[in-house]
């Protein structure tokens, strides 16, 4: 298993946040399709809930889209009240996708990191 490497998600996947009320969704899409099963196994709803719990998140659901090699996290109450009541600089939670990408680490084969990546 010497070809395995542990890196932030940002090295292997991309995503975007959307918001509706006090509910955020974050898509997660690996650059290399072979990374998908590793992400399914390691980026669990429980881990994502733990990441956002300090902001008040109460529940995370993960929807898997194998056709698109993508997953969609729906996070309840992660927006500190959303645009109605949040005091954060980012009322819509637009920046949260990069929090997920930066702060959750995964262990994947090196071949799942795009060639030329600065993480290699």
């Amino acid at each position: 298993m010497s070809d395995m490497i542990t890196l932030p998600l940002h090295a292997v996947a991309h995503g975007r946040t959307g918001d509706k009320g006090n509910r955020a969704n974050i898509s997660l899409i690996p650059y290399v399709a072979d990374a998908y099963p590793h992400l399914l196994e390691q980026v669990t709803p429980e881990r994502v809930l733990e990441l956002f719990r300090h902001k008040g998140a109460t529940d995370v659901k993960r929807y898997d889209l194998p056709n698109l090699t993508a997953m969609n996290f729906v996070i309840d109450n992660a927006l500190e009240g959303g645009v109605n009541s949040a005091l954060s600089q980012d009322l819509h939670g637009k920046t949260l996708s990069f929090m997920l990408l930066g702060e959750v680490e995964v262990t994947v084969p090196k071949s799942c990191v795009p060639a030329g990546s600065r993480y290699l």
Partner: protein
Amino acid sequence: MTVYIGSGAGFAGDRLDAGVPVVETLKTRDGPRYLIFEVMGERTLAIAQRIRMRKPELGYSPYLEPYLRNVLKAAKEAGVTIVANLGNANPLGGAKRTHELAKELGVEGLRVAVVLGDDLLAFMGPDDIASLPTIEGVSIDGKEIVAANAYLGARPVAEALKLGVDVVLVGRTTDAALVLGPLIHEYGWGEEDWNLLAQGTLAGHLLECGGQVTGGYFCDPGFKDVPGMDELGFPIGEIAADGTIVITKADNTGGLVNRATVTEQMLYEVHDPSAYLTPDVSLDITEVTLEEVGKDRIRVTGAKGNPPPDTLKVTVSADGGWLAESEMIYAGPNALARARLAADVVRSRVGKHGVEEPVRIEIIGTGAVYDNDASDRERQKNMPMDGEYRLRAAIRTLDKATAQYVNDEVLSLFCSGPAGGGGYRCNISGQVNTASVLVPRGPVEAQSRAEEVKP
């Protein structure tokens, strides 16, 4: 036959000139061609409603004129039909303004239609609206209702197009209706052609945010590179009678369209991907397939449709008081210690003054946007003391004087706070709170109608 639908704006504030190359491109295509502008958010409508209360001829989007000015003449000459929610809280007023603009620009014979009936306050009392059960957002019971608008579907948009007009202005419809409406009009899709309606809705979802599907809000240098972002090309959807979509973009522009850009936009603001609810269809994207069929061309197929719910979503807006924000920067040696002391001073004084509402006091540069109101993560981190840190205070309050007071406490750090603070900036902005409620569709849809507005 192929229907071509381009986007000229994905939000109120999008580039004013983005629609120009889209019209230039559509000019060279054969078949029905449309240009959409999507500029409404939950709050823009409430703000527009307030403006309309003060000046009844206003309340349409303040972006109506700047967006249409750049494309109206070229679109009319090329036979490109404009479908836009620039009507906002007053589509009739917007239509009147559009005619004036046409006259000014020398556009002759322009015909404009509007879709009406989304405004619940026109036929329901505020008390009846306030008593509806809230599914999302703040409780509205007992608050002054500023606006209450139902999300209409694509059928009234198609009705408006049947009038043979050059411009259709709507208020609150689903964003996707701006695209599905023209497709229903051109192809005659029936009310139970679920999979076709699903493909049309998906086309709308992909196009409604403008450049977000062509590399905008996507680029991450070194990871997801996008060429020519200063001239980002806005998207064009090519939709066939069987619902097959090709997403591409305006000719001779920057940006890109690939599987990754389309996938990110497809999941944007989606919750359960097997049930994206609209008044026209419940969209299921779990079996969608994306194929690269050329440079900057992605074919999208496989959306499935199910019957929509028998209720419509209504956004209700109420007065939300004030949001005050103020900032001061500290830089150089020991900057973090000075910023932290400034935060403690403001916290102490605001507390002693008896401010009851929560005040967020944070230090930008410490990962504040990922932190919570109590700055719990910042306290646990070992940040470098030297550097550049910006104090920020924020409060929401119904009392404008309290909002001003908190800003003034940050301002007073100039002479009474730690050394070297500078760059004070502050803002107080009026807020609108929103809630979503569900209403039975029958009575609302009975009110919805399309009509031509003559000059």
